[in-house]
């Protein structure tokens, strides 16, 4: 137990949190235009698979990531068309996409790579790890902040960017307006569907990045259902963070940390199944607190930001 808490735990949290954070930001963006995106899980899984596929096709990591973003972007366009264009129930469509993603990736895994369960190619290179000059030499900080993949850094940069765009710019203001009262936004002549499509598709791109970080980040392989519920935890992080980028970052860090701790605990005498339950149990506990907050928000007592 002595090794349970050290600096590498926090460092591990950072890379564990990146996919979660990217997906949660996608969820937050969708929530802000009034769409409850439960398809984060499936989109992330498709992102993970297409990143590996792209890597195999192009032999280039950057192109692989772009390919993943493109493919998930297409899937999110389908989600957007069904929920916005055809006004289908977002939860039903989202769950359908999650199951579709699960089956489709397993099928394609066999159809393209001829394997079941897991695909890994040892000649394939994963995402590079950036060692930031000066910072990597500072004792603790270096270990913590340096040596991550570009996507980890990008996730945190996006938090700042989204925070700025949503709450400081005109386009962000209008996007918030669309989510807050679509009827009123429409009566002002705002193109509400444009904002909704934009948010969902950009969210899809973020899920593509999240998937790429999963399959090309710490490891370079694809496993069936490798997201393992991270999309749903991201959804909880979205809600807990009040769909506010900074809040979403905080809640994602919390979940990422819990996930890391649970991995660490696997080395201890506590049964593995119990430690694996840990993040999910915490999710439920956290939801209990969250429930109260939404009530406050609905009554207009809590600042929506």
């Amino acid at each position, binding site marked *: 137990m002595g090794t349970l808490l050290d600096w590498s735990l926090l460092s591990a949290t950072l890379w564990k949190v990146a996919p979660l954070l990217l997906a949660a930001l996608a969820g937050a963006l969708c929530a802000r235009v009034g769409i409850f995106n439960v398809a984060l899980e499936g989109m992330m899984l498709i992102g993970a698979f297409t990143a590996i596929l792209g890597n195999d096709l192009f032999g280039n990591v950057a192109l692989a990531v772009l390919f993943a973003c493109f493919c998930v972007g297409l899937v999110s366009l389908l989600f957007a068309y069904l929920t916005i264009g055809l006004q289908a129930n977002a939860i039903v469509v989202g769950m359908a996409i999650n199951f579709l993603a699960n089956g489709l990736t397993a099928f394609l895994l066999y159809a393209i790579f001829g394997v079941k369960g897991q695909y890994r190619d040892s000649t394939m290179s994963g995402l590079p790890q950036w060692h930031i000059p000066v910072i990597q030499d500072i004792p603790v900080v270096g270990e913590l902040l340096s040596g991550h993949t570009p996507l980890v850094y990008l996730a945190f940069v996006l938090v700042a960017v989204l925070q700025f765009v949503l709450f400081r*710019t005109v386009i962000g*203001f209008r996007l*918030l*307006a669309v989510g807050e009262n679509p009827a*009123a936004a429409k009566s*002002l*002549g*705002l193109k509400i569907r444009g904002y909704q499509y934009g948010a969902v598709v950009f969210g899809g791109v973020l899920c593509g990045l999240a998937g790429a970080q999963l399959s090309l980040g710490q490891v370079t392989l694809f496993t069936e259902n490798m997201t393992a519920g991270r999309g749903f935890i991201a959804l909880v992080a979205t809600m807990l963070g009040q769909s506010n980028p900074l809040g979403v970052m905080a809640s994602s860090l919390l979940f990422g940390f819990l996930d890391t701790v649970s991995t660490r605990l696997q080395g201890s005498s506590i049964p593995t199944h119990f430690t694996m339950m840990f993040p999910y149990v915490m999710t439920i506990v956290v939801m209990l607190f969250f429930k109260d907050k939404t009530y406050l928000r609905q009554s207009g007592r809590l600042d929506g*930001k």
Partner: protein
Amino acid sequence: MLLQMEGITKRYGSLIANDRVDFSLQEGEVHALVGENGAGKSTLMRILYGEEQPSEGRIIVGGRERVFATPSDAIAAGIGMVHQHFMLFPSFTVAENIVIGREPKAGVKFDRKAAAEHVKTLSEKFGMPVDPWAKVADCPVGVQQRIEILKVLNQGAKIIILDEPTGALTPLEVEWLLKAIKRLAKQGISFILISHKLNEVLGSADRITVLRDGKVIGSVKASDTDAAALSRMMVGRELAKFERKPVVPGEAILTVDNVTVLGDRGTKPLLDRVSLTVRAGEIVGIAGVSGNGQSELLQVVSGLRRVHSGKVTLGGKDVTGLSAGEFRRAGLAHIPEDRYLWGSAKEESVADNAIMGHLASLSKGGILRKRLIREKVARWIDAFRVKTGSLETKAKHLSGGNMQKLIVAREMAHGTPFVIAAEPTRGVDIGAMETIHEALLKRRDEGGAILLVSSELSEILKLSDRILVLYEGRVAGELSAGDATEEKISFLMAGGSGNETH
């Protein structure tokens, strides 16, 4: 002439909503548009605001013929609309709500400070005070409406359409609004005022146009007409002479004895030792400024809220603490305060809404008897002249007045000895009001006990045999129909004590 609508006709299939309607507006004029529910006022205004396209006819603004394909086109031509249900963003600030769509920018940034200053200047220019940094959710309804009007003015509107603007306002807010309209008209803004309330229309409009069944019945100067003439034009017949037959009240049906309801956090009581009796063959009216315990009283006598102390009996049975279902079985019918929140399911059909609470008599062994239901509901719809496409029409497509008539029909059909009528005619036109009042009086004459709660003093005075005034959760005084005047009631409503009225 600033605006002319000529020969506007709008057809929905075989239904004609507007039939060769002419309408005009001069600069600085307040032109009221009145008519019953479904007379075609809203359709005409939706056409003017670009939300609907006319089947025939043309719109001329400032001498040029225009076609409005979307509201944005109408806004660009200087037409603004304040909807009956406000189109605001509750969690945004006042300034944000007013400048949206025309935000001041600093680069890509939304310059909120400039927005607030702009709103401040605007509100001073038009004499409509608002706090730019306040959150809309925290603003009272009257202020929210001011925000709507400022928003429309900020869009550069020269013509403002106000759809039922006074429906949700308190009497003081109404007075303020009507003055503000007149002042703005002097500054050159023209208004189209859609309203049911003839006294407000007569007091604030220059000209009044009456629509009935999609046609213009007449266009008159406000100074040349009166409420009686207008209602004749609207309804198309003389309103029945209103008479309240003397009825000797019978035994007590509902008694509320010393009931106290505490606030959620043990704050001061919402109802404080309230006692009242409603006897067979009388209508007891409850007056008061809203928020003085009327809602809580209604919930107590319908079994929707627990009392902390005191006793409620209904039809001789002690019903204190029982469920709403048991209240109903003890002989209660309830026309609820908010027809959408408590009284109907908007997404369901007219027929399904009509049979709510009647399932026992309309089903057999758990199976609905469809034919019986159709016959019954059709009879109620006939009796109350509910305008609906069919029994399968979704309730949300009914106008407010017609929905209200349907609810009244449904509740009256129970034939219970006790009826709660809460705001029975809110937002309802004169014809529907007459129908509903007649139904309530008929029940009274037949020996029914009715508890009437209304924010319209005229309604209370017209129907009640006895009037109780609630003030801060207490009965501030009781007046008999003979004694009651608007002044006396207002005095009690404002917290004066019953003894000082003489």
